[in-house]
């Protein structure tokens, strides 16, 4: 008796993926070999039992159209909540561009460049572009203070708000 078949052969055979010639050869062996024939019958029986169990399990959770939609909506809601909880971290360059765009019509491009540089230096950073994420709140506090001196307190509050929104 030739038990030359590996588990790959067995899997391909059971899934019907073996080439026709190999399949015929293997079936001839299974008919002749009691041990292998018994193994095949056991595997097929277990597979059938698993399929039946899976079917029973699926049928135990009947989902109609409404319940499906509710499930999808609750899933989307939980995803959006997760998104809101995790801060949407904008790049430093984008934040500085946003601040520039907001401040330039108020006090001019030259003033904004000077104010950003001064705020960065007060935060112990040589330039605003070199600002690390962790120093952003300190930088914004300094920039807001400078804006308050330049353009008054309402503008300072708004710059702080823009900094918060931009981050």
């Amino acid at each position: 008796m030739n038990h030359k078949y590996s588990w790959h052969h067995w899997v391909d055979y059971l899934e019907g993926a073996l080439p026709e010639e190999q399949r015929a050869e293997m079936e001839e062996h299974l008919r002749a070999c009691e041990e292998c024939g018994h193994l095949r019958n056991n595997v097929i029986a277990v597979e059938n039992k698993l399929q039946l169990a899976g079917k029973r399990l699926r049928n135990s959770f009947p989902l109609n159209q409404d319940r499906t939609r509710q499930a999808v909506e609750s899933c989307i809601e939980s995803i959006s909540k997760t998104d809101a909880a995790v801060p949407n971290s904008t790049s430093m360059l984008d934040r500085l561009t946003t601040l520039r765009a907001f401040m330039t019509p108020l006090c001019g491009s030259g003033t904004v460049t000077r104010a950003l540089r001064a705020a960065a230096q007060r935060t112990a950073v040589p330039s605003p572009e070199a600002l690390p994420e962790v120093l952003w709140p300190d930088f914004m506090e300094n920039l807001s203070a400078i804006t308050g001196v330049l353009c008054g307190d309402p503008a300072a509050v708004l710059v702080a708000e823009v900094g918060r929104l931009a981050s």
Partner: protein
Amino acid sequence: MINAITRLTPRVIAYVTIGFAACWVICRLISDFVWHPNWGPLEVAIFVIEGVIAYGIAMVLCFQIAAEYRHSYWLRVAWLCLAVKSGVAVVRYALDDPMINLIRPGYYESPWSGLARELPMAVALSFLVAGMLAMAYGFLQMGLGFKLERRDWAAIAGVIAVLIAVIYFRQDLSAARWKSMPLVLQAQIAIQILFAVAAAISIILYRLSLQMGGGQLALAMRSLIVYIVLRSMLVFVSMILLPSLFRVDRENFVTMFVYQATPWLFTLAAVYRFQLASNATRHVAAWRVRELSAKRVGIS
């Protein structure tokens, strides 16, 4: 009332200026053909009314702006000085009304009207100079790198040279006719010196506004500069070239026309500066609405 004033825009100021200019021209025509000359020039009445309104608005706005600078000592002082200047200008215009002749005949031609005109003007100009100095110093000491250039100092020296030349070569001032009240003449001389000082400081403010690179703050400063330069030029023209034209020769249409419009330039400066915060608020509100809309679209 104050709420209405705070909603004024530069465009509204422009329309009001044009409206008053048209009224002034009409009054001048009526004055030439209908009005009795002894009651004083009618167009000056319009000049007085618009001066009171323009400086009244400016005073309210300047006080509001000063209140915004709680953490900036020099800029708060600057806008408070400009507010006081506006308030004194309102009093000065009110006392300069030729219609007072209808109640007290001869007032407009008396030395008292000269004193009521020149003394408050000198006080107002002192506050203007103080306000401009405080503003310039406030910006220069911020540590943002604003600085003057060599040519600015040259221009300031030029203005001072012109002032000395004007004082040396000047013809008789209009206040010289009131010899019984020398204070009027002294106030008028002080006015001319103060205008020259204001013009010199406006060079500093001009340099600062250039270094700002645009924006509403620079617009406000430039309006103030144009106001001072125009007023100073009118004063110096009246001293050197056309001393008899102010208030004496009413044929001088162009000069008086420019003169009646200048208070609105000062108001415009205050409006530009005051609008800075409200424009910024609108900008942020619009932004937040856009952000919220974008979030809603993202979820659906």
